[in-house]
């Protein structure tokens, strides 16, 4: 399943691809329904109060020459009780579904079919499919129509997982494990990004959820477990050698090889991903070249350094990374 498949699934581009108002799963939908209910009630309150206010302002505007002190009514019990009770009732109307949803949207203690450990890093997402033995980054592949349990934590500062069309935020706190769940009703790509300020790369810390059919998911898992290890082309072979020599391997892991770095995202299956650098660029050879030439220029604050590679080194490494499928 290559990038073309993913792109094809996205369908017509949405006007607001990251909108909480276009829910595509049960969690976001519950939240959206509550947003709608509260918005309607609150708009009603706004209109009623503003109308009363505007009417009063116009009706009792002083006319020139009439400055006599006005009627000095300064109390009215019935009225005061009324405008205490009415808001109270409206609040109860909103409180009931709020409390119900608060519990309903909390994931159960025992994880369901797929569970993913999401670990926040400055400024990328590590995604460990614990029970499947697969690790990837920044693109969360899930089978659509199923509940996916997430357990979230951070390796450094606080981040927050937010894919508006699937679910509201859950914070990633260092030293703590939070839980959440998502489900996508339809296949497709759901955009999100980090929602808790986490440093210079915060604005560029995107997460994409790629929802596929069960079959495609199984194939993806299989591919991740048994990746092609030795590349076909000579250029990519040279890239593989360089990967160990120039130090990429001190930070990156590629399954099936002797590259076991831990500081950066795992690159197994990288050639299949649609984006690089936490969703900042699409995954094309040209973009990869730009990325390898100077990562901090693309992602301010990125912990991947500029390794001062030569043009030919970059070409070889690009070919290698592209070959990881």
């Amino acid at each position, binding site marked *: 399943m290559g990038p073309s498949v993913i792109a094809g699934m996205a369908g017509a581009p949405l006007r607001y691809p990251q909108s909480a108002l276009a829910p595509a799963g049960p969690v976001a939908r519950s*939240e959206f329904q*509550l947003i709608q209910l509260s*918005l309607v009630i609150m708009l009603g309150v*706004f209109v009623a109060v503003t109308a009363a206010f505007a009417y009063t302002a116009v009706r009792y505007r002083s006319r020139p020459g009439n400055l006599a002190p006005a009627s000095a009514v*300064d109390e009215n019990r019935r009225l005061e009780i009324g405008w205490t009770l009415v808001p109270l009732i409206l609040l109860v109307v909103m409180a009931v579904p709020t409390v119900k949803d608060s519990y309903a949207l909390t994931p159960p203690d025992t994880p369901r079919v797929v569970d993913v450990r999401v670990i926040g890093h400055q400024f990328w997402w590590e995604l460990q499919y614990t029970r499947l033995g697969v690790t990837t980054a920044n693109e969360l592949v899930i089978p659509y129509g199923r509940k996916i349990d997430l357990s979230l934590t951070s390796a450094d500062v606080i981040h927050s997982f937010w894919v508006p069309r699937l679910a509201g935020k*859950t914070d990633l706190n260092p030293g*703590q494990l939070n839980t959440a769940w998502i489900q996508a009703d339809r296949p497709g790509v759901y955009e999100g990004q980090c*929602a808790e300020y986490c440093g*210079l790369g915060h604005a*560029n810390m995107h997460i994409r959820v790629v929802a596929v059919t069960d079959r495609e998911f199984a194939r993806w898992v299989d591919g991740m477990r048994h990746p092609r290890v030795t590349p076909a082309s000579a250029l990519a072979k040279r890239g593989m050698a360089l990967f160990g020599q120039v130090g990429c391997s001190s930070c990156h892991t590629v399954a099936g090889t002797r590259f076991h770095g831990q500081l950066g995202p795992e690159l197994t299956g990288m050639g299949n991903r649609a984006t690089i650098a936490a969703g900042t660029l699409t995954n094309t050879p040209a973009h990869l070249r730009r990325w390898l030439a100077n990562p901090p220029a693309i992602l301010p604050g990125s912990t991947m350094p500029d390794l001062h590679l030569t043009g030919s080194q970059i070409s070889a490494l690009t070919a290698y990374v592209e070959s990881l499928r």
Partner: protein
Amino acid sequence: MAMALGRAATAAVRLRAWSWLTTVDHKRIGILYLVTSAFLFLVGGFEAFLIRLQLIRPDNHLVSSAMYSQLFTMHGTTMIFLAVMPILVGFMNAVMPLMIGARDVAFPRLNALSYWMYLAGALLLNSSWFLGGAPNAGWFNYAPISTGAYNPGPGIDFYDLGVQIAGIGTLMTGINFLVTILAMRTEGMSLMRMPLFVWTTLITSLLIIFAFPPLTANLFFLMFDRLAGTAFFNVPHGGDVVLWEQLFWTFGHPEVYILVLPAFGIISEVVATFSRKPLFGYASMVWAVEVIAFLSFIVWSHHMFPVGLGPTVNTMFVLTSMAIAVPTGIKIFNWIATMWGGRIQLTTAMLFAMSFIPTFVVGGTSGVMTALAPADMQFHDSYFVVAHLHYVLIGGTLMAVFAAAYYWFPKITGRLMSERLGRWNFWLVTVGFNVAFLPQHFIGLWGMPRRVYTYGPGLGLSFWNALSTVGVFILTLGILVMVMNVVHALRRGEAAGPDPWDGRTLEWSTASPAPPYNFARLPRVRGRDAFWEQKRSTERELWPVDRHIHLPSPTPVPALMALGLLVAAYGAIFRSIPVVAAGLGLTVYGIHRSMFDVDPGVIVTPTEEGAA
């Protein structure tokens, strides 16, 4: 000869500067607060302007990510701690003692110390721009991104110590005003006769006294972590990062009511005056302020719904947060009922006070929406919250501040501001503000997080962000008109006389500006709206003018003590123990002087004009 004249002139200037440096008069301290905080408001506004300029289009490169995070941090910190809160303290200083018929606050020296500490904090924070970089972890400065491991530069130290120094000054203000209101009211000014602005000052003081200590503790923890290597927030060593959030918001939520309750007080005064009616539902207004203040201490976790505290904790905070809407609604309805049946005079002050009502309702209703935890998982940390907080803080507090400025300017300076410019000021600010911030609700719902220096063109947000920035252009014009109006009024504003608005409360019963001793004869109060009643009562009881009024003498010690803290803070930031010791030594010397000096005070005899 010319030289002698020149020397005399500089001597006079020096004398004037010295008199401001040593003043303990609440009215002059009020002016110091107002001038300083107005300036810092312009600084914070400039930072906001740059923020919006950066966001005018997607993938913009006006400022870097590093600069952007300093801008939003300094904007929020400046606006909350150094601009809006001190503006309110300035108005409280300027008029609260007058409103209760007192000659000064309870502790005039402490009052001066509060101001100088505020100034020291402000100078410290803003000097960070030139001394290694401004703080960059947001105004709530979450750990661990604010700890040494992730933020080694001096910026966060500036935040920590600047907010600490200014905050302790504010804490002393709270104590001072609380005692003043409880102990120094004139004869007949019972609690339930106090103007609403005095009531909100009283309750705000209580909020300050209870809310600031958790912040103080938090800032000390962070300081120890950064300077001494403790591990309050250091996770690998057993620290806890949610601790910072808990302590910060137990302060932070009451803090937003510290910013909004005085605004409620201002609106109550202005709306009653210009409706020419007593405030509707006085008792329920007082009750509502008290209930809001109490609730404000048990809602803090609504700032932390996505933190993972679990559905039971979240539910508790949902319910308490929603409950605040009830007393708040009561206040809104009471203001409308005050206008009902009145003779509404559309002065600039009244226009601002009136536009407060609908805009505050927007902020209040979006506030109720964010209190609904599951929905808030979407609102949280998005531009929806940026819109909400500005509807409350600009649409609420700042509108009230503008109203207060037009309303009390004549009392403070003796001159009237131009109503014609005032109208321009009002319309530009109102239109600009709504164009800038209404779209941000949707920008947030469409998926834009706050604190991002850039966004992609693919999100569909380009037009709305551009519109929001255009709104800020209009808003900026409105604020510039305000500046013009103030300058113009100070130069050649019409003389105001003691009571330009046919006022209801005691500050209008004395000269504008009020003499140093406030009242030649202390007023006697017979009911609410004391001055209004007095003007209409037929019996004129004149008691003898006080011939010998005892006032505290001016002193440079408070300024010296604040200077000591400023020096010590620089010492701590640049890790120099001798400098810390020297600074703290100066402050301790000041404390010693304050404890053991005997102040003989000065005796003043009122002039005839003051006695009028």
